[in-house]
């Protein structure tokens, strides 16, 4: 599903590499934690996947297709295959929960009839059907993050990427969010989750890829967060 082949990324000439010779494959339906210290290159990995930035060398493939060959016009269609949940990727305050999720369908031109059917289903899935007409300011942090997740999956992405999805949440709520992500993963969505939440990673017993200064220093199925650190 996702293949990084000898990928190196350098933001500025002569600066240190943000990613160095990263080779990594993620299969369809996998659940992968991406961990590492701040500045290790995790966000760079995600940005390359979304083609927000281009590789300095190497190849990034999705479904076997080298995404560097996509034209600027085709990039939006790549992004429709990938849902994203960012820590700083907030909701629009002036739109209701329903409207925030519906918005993601509207902007890729889905018809209202489809939107009316799908949005309540997605909100049901994240457990917020009863909050449909509320505004983000009336929701708790965990509930807001659920809306963000509903929005990210509304267009049926093949891959869901979460950058620090529980960064601002308390442990119980984080647990709920992780369960939700697991459930989405169980439906077949490939999941890449960047996190600092050590105990969560350890408890989930999923594949863990650890980056350090742009290099993959460990890649363990049923891995632990602390591998190679201490």
């Amino acid at each position, binding site marked *: 599903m996702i293949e990084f082949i000898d990928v190196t990324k350098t933001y500025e000439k002569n600066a240190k590499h943000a990613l160095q010779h990263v080779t990594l494959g993620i299969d369809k339906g996998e659940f992968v934690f991406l961990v590492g210290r701040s500045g290790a290159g995790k966000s760079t990995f995600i940005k390359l996947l979304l083609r927000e930035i281009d590789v300095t060398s190497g190849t990034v493939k999705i479904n076997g297709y080298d995404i560097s060959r996509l034209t600027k016009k085709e990039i*939006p269609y790549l992004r429709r295959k990938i849902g994203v949940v960012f820590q700083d990727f*907030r909701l*629009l305050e002036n739109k209701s929960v329903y409207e925030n999720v519906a*918005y993601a369908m509207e902007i890729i031109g889905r018809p209202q009839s489809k939107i009316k059917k799908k949005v309540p289903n997605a909100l049901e899935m994240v457990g917020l059907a009863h909050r449909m007409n509320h505004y983000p300011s009336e929701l708790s942090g965990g509930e807001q993050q659920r809306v963000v997740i509903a929005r990210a999956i509304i267009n049926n992405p093949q891959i869901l990427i979460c950058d620090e999805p529980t960064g601002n949440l308390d442990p119980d709520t984080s647990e709920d969010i992780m369960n939700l992500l697991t459930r989405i993963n169980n439906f077949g969505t490939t999941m890449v989750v960047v996190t600092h939440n050590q105990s969560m990673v350890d408890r989930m017993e999923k594949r863990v890829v650890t980056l350090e200064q742009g290099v993959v220093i460990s890649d363990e199925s049923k891995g632990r967060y602390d591998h190679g650190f201490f």
Partner: protein
Amino acid sequence: MASFNKGSTLRSILREALQSISRNRLMSVISVLSITAALMILGIFVVFTLNIQSLTANVESRLGMQIFLSEDYTELEKTNLEKALMDNPNIVEVTFEDVLDAKEKFSDELENYAILTTDLTGEKNPLPVSFIIKVDKPENLEEVKAYVESHSGNGVEYIRYGDNYVDSLLRFNYFVNILSILVLTVLTIISFVLIYNTIKLTIYARRKEIGIMKYVGATDRYIRTPFVFEGMVLGLIAAISALLLLRLGYYYFFGMIKGNVVIPIQSLLASPESVFKQIIVFFIIYGMALGAIGSRFAMKKFLDV
């Protein structure tokens, strides 16, 4: 793109553009004023040119000639000259004119070519008695000139040709055109920069939405549309303001001229209706294009991600 509820989309885009304009009220007003100013300059220039065209297109004005007799002309000289003028087949009209009845005549016959060949205030005219002639075709003008000159004896003081008048009008028009193009260019650049910055502010205010749109996979065109639309709305408002102001101004000017019967040139001017018919479409396109291009440039950097 799949089927699309175009009606509601257009309405929501329009609503968002208006909301955004009222959010950036100051910048919006400044850019509208700037485009309005550019269009007003353009409008004055167009009105001017149309009028010059209207005046010069009137071939009669080129075909007129006025032969002033000296103060001490004799009846014989006058009769001979009149006869010579009448004899020339290319001269289709010969009128004898005495300044004393000139004023009256001008206010009656508005379209008389003599208007252009006569000093219109009687007291300024030192040569009160003249023949006003009309040549049949422009190509015979030179020949008639030579003919008239050869037959002007001592009794003739001065000959005034209509085409001198036309030439100086055209020279003046040329100067006005150059000046207008310069001013218009400068104003267009200023308007562009102002629109560009106004839309940048809008983009900044809505950067969160743009981020969401990008990550969900909205096309650049989709993201750009509301901003380009906003620019076009600003341009449209400016175009309409400029048209209204110009129309008002030209009516006022036209009315002023009408009120002055000593200078009855109104009949030779382009009417406000014809002027506005000619500029209305161009103004709206110019205003909206300027707005659209300004916004597109403002969006460019933002979408290059």
